[in-house]
């Protein structure tokens, strides 16, 4: 499963894994902004920079590149629209930027445990409700995916596959509806379980990560490298 693989990757011990999650999150955001605003001729520099990031994290290149391609179906829609409207170079740049952005995100997720990422976002000022929702989404993604798989199996076992396309669509819609209802019920149960253990609205942690000098150096290095990749081709 996609997220289980990222989960495994995030347990690594590379140089990038050991950096504070806030430094990695800020570095990734910086790269994304620079990448989004760069001219097409700067894309090669960002490609090198991101591949260096994948290497520093000790992640498998093929695995990262394949997972980043999940963004392509969405990006392709806009690429085709741009290409059809007579701007192929812009279309290509959009596609490349989308893909490289996805590589940056997959690298970040593969080098940082998701809870650390949520906590870093919270410490950097993200709204607590947003990080709490993301935390629960991550935790229960697996549970809901398992539930969906079981329900699909149950539907198939009752010959849903042999039915017409509209009938299958109706079955799928029903499945999604039931899944929502169950997720809602589970949310109520989880809330009760949290109250039962004296939850007061704030997630407390056993240990607060500390931002070391090496994290600051890492962030600075990424900023300099990103700025070089973004602005150097202009000179």
């Amino acid at each position: 499963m996609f997220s289980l693989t990222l989960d495994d990757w995030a347990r690594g011990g590379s140089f990038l894994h050991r950096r504070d999650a806030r430094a990695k999150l800020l570095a990734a955001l910086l790269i994304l902004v620079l990448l989004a605003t760069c001219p097409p001729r700067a894309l090669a520099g960002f490609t090198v920079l991101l591949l260096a990031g994948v290497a520093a994290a000790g992640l498998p290149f093929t695995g990262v590149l394949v997972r980043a391609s999940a963004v392509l179906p969405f990006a392709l829609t806009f690429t085709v629209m741009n290409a059809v409207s007579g701007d192929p170079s812009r279309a290509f740049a959009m596609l490349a930027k989308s893909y490289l952005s996805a590589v940056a995100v997959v690298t970040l997720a593969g080098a940082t445990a998701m809870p650390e990422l949520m906590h870093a976002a919270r410490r950097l000022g993200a709204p607590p409700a947003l990080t709490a929702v993301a935390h629960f989404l991550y935790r229960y993604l697996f549970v809901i995916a398992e539930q969906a798989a079981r329900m699909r199996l149950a539907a198939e076992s009752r010959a849903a596959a042999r039915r017409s396309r509209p009938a299958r669509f109706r079955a799928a819609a029903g499945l999604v509806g039931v899944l929502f209802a169950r997720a809602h019920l589970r949310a109520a149960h989880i809330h009760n379980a949290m109250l039962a253990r004296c939850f007061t609205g704030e997630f407390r942690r056993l240990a607060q990560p500390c931002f070391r000098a090496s994290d600051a150096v890492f962030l600075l290095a990424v900023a300099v490298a990103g700025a070089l990749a973004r602005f150097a081709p202009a000179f």
Partner: protein
Amino acid sequence: MNPLVSVSNLRYRYEDGTLALDGVNFELFAGETVILFGANGSGKTTFVHHLNGLFRGEGQVSVCGLTVERANLAAIRTRVGLVFQDPDDQLFMSSVLEDVAFGPLNLGHPPPHALTLAKEALERAGMLHALDKAPHRLSAGEKRRVAIAGVLGMQPEILVLDEPTTFLDPPGQHDLLALLRRLPQAKIIATHEAGFARAIGTRAVFFDQGRIIRSGPVEDVIREFGWEPK
């Protein structure tokens, strides 16, 4: 001897009008393990949720001498450890250790002490080896043990378990039984499993349509209501 839990004439109606509890009277004493029997929908889960102050109906509920009311909720929730039917509802943190430390941290224990409590609880539940694991990587039996550790970390005086054998295979049930026997707390266990109840219960009550209609020795209640697979 004063009861640890005392429930008097408890009534509870859900928002849709369903009368879930209709005048329940109940007492739990130190050292007891009381089994709650009854068909699905008979009121067992609704009842146990009252013991932790999650639901509040009409009537009187007191735990360790404290009336279940808003002002006493924190104190009551430290005394009553409630283990939910589906451990996935209870294991909401991203690692086993973080989850077991959730309660102690909420009680205001400093992180180093919360860590000690969490590790002790995991050790008692036989899950210390899994402290770094994510909950979705645990088996059903392991999840159940971690869920129990999650309430043990709060050092409760009473353990309340709602259908603890759900999702467990016979070896898993056997392990759970051994774990529960080792724990000294008074226990209330809602279950359908007659064998499990026999092995651990000191007394049983039978729920029917929101009422306790029988209380007595486990074997008698099982026999009277035919609560055993034929």
